[in-house]
């Protein structure tokens, strides 16, 4: 039973990790916690649904189409809403992203209603790949994990070894100095929002087949992703990934051995404990800005 719980925890943890990464990318770039992240992922998942269903695209094409849409959505958020703010502070940004969240939530409700729909991926939840003495791994489990790991790897390579990744790192550390060195830091910020939205959309696509497709499908994964990011350290991408997996596993074990009713509360218990004992997260470095 324990190994089955661990596998379940790792799979769901990989989705938390992706959501956490999405939050962390924009947070690192701009210190903005984007509360619209979940709804942006939800809308992108609906776009996949439409492309697959009404438009009749093949899965991988629809998948790529949805990611392109997600990227544009992130760029729009930065360009239309974030950039217009005059001398904003953290609270203004929270209000802006919550506003964007409500806007998207309303749009989804108006366009698709609150019915719960099914999103069919080419990976089945019933197809059992391995069965080792009662420990079951389904096709969907494996696909979720593999896809999440691939995205994390690609993201790591991208941020570490490309010129754009380096420009993002520079813009994060000193926006003005980056501009002074020929880096179009505002455009880089828009790209960061696009990238974060893409990572979130992939999380959405992996969540939808496990739960259902409806406008509030991302509330829980968003909060869990946020908790994972706080656990691992908002500004450390490897920390966020480890935080996601840890949270998934802890939650699953707690749900079985302690209390199923309180399973979802574990994430918040973890946030409180982390803020109490190590506010910068398990792997976060705490920088003090010199004045």
């Amino acid at each position, binding site marked *: 039973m324990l190994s089955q719980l661990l596998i379940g925890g790792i799979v769901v943890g990989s989705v938390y990790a992706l959501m956490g990464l999405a939050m962390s990318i924009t947070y690192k770039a701009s210190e903005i916690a984007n509360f619209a992240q979940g709804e942006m992922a939800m809308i992108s998942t609906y776009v996949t649904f439409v492309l697959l269903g009404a438009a009749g695209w093949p899965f991988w094409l629809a998948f790529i189409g949805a990611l392109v849409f997600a990227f544009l959505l992130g760029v729009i958020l930065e360009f239309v809403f974030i950039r217009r703010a005059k001398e904003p502070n953290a609270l203004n940004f929270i209000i802006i992203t919550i506003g964007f969240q409500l806007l998207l939530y309303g749009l989804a409700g108006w366009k698709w209603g609150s019915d719960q729909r099914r999103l069919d991926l080419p990976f089945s939840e019933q197809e059992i790949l391995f069965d080792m003495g009662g420990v079951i791994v389904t096709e969907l489990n494996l696909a979720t994990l593999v896809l999440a790991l691939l995205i994390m790897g690609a993201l790591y390579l991208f941020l*570490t*070894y*490309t*010129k*754009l*990744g*380096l*420009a993002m*790192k*520079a813009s994060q*550390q*000193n926006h*003005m*100095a*980056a*501009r*002074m*060195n*020929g*880096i*179009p*830091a*505002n455009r880089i910020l828009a790209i960061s929002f696009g990238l974060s939205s893409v990572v979130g959309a992939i999380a959405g696509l992996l969540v939808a087949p496990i739960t259902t497709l409806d406008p509030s499908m991302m509330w829980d994964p968003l909060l869990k992703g946020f908790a994972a990011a706080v656990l691992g350290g908002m500004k450390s991408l490897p920390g966020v990934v480890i935080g996601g997996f840890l949270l998934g596993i802890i939650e699953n074990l707690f749900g079985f051995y302690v209390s199923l009713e309180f399973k979802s509360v574990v994430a918040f218990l973890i946030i409180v404990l982390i803020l109490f004992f190590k506010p910068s997260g398990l792997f976060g470095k705490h*920088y003090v800005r*010199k004045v």
Partner: protein
Amino acid sequence: MSSFFTIQHLSKSFGGVKAVQNLSFTVNKGEIFSIIGPNGAGKSTVFNCINGLYKPTGGSISFQGEALIGKRPDQISRLGIARTFQNLELFAHMSTMDNILLGRHLHMKSSLFAIAARCHPRMGPSKEEIAHRGRVEEIIDFLDLQAARNTFVSALPYGQQKIVELGRALATEPQLLLLDEPAAGLNQEEREELVFWIKDIRDQFGITVILIEHNMQLVTQISDRLLALNFGQKLVEGSVEEVINHPEVIRAYLG
């Protein structure tokens, strides 16, 4: 004839405060040109207008025949204007090497998606990376920063951080270098070194320098010409003797 660098009728106000009013001056190629004036005279505002951090309220700025107003800071840096800041703007959580390497950013392959000068050690460095690192090493040698090469800049003493910032500005291979109080916070020895470096930057690299500085000893030592500002307006522009002996300048400083 269009000159190297010209500012005409530049004005910048913040609400009702006129930080710079109707300011005009020219800088010739190869000059070391200093801007002096009491605190709040609008010196840094002029720099911020030149490299696009501020949008001027009026006037024009031209660099080698190209109008700068309306361009973004990154576009202006690509035209060949670099600067350092009064209060250090470094990438604090990167090494000296990486800070200076970022100055090379605008010379790296044009596409943002190009694989950068940070290939994996196992794959071996690319030709482009070798060239950029070579330039960085030259700057590190020139500024005597060998000992600080791999240190996080936030761990360096203040004087060294200022030199790293100067190195990053040089790495962009500018034609015009704006230095905002480079000697502030340096000790006597560092200040003397700085004088040599600024002269070498002009003589060896042929870079034109505009300097904001309070230390009059340093200013009179290295400047070809001076501009004195007070309350955002030009008091006088001319040779060192002309400016420091001008009655208005003496009054602004003493009275």
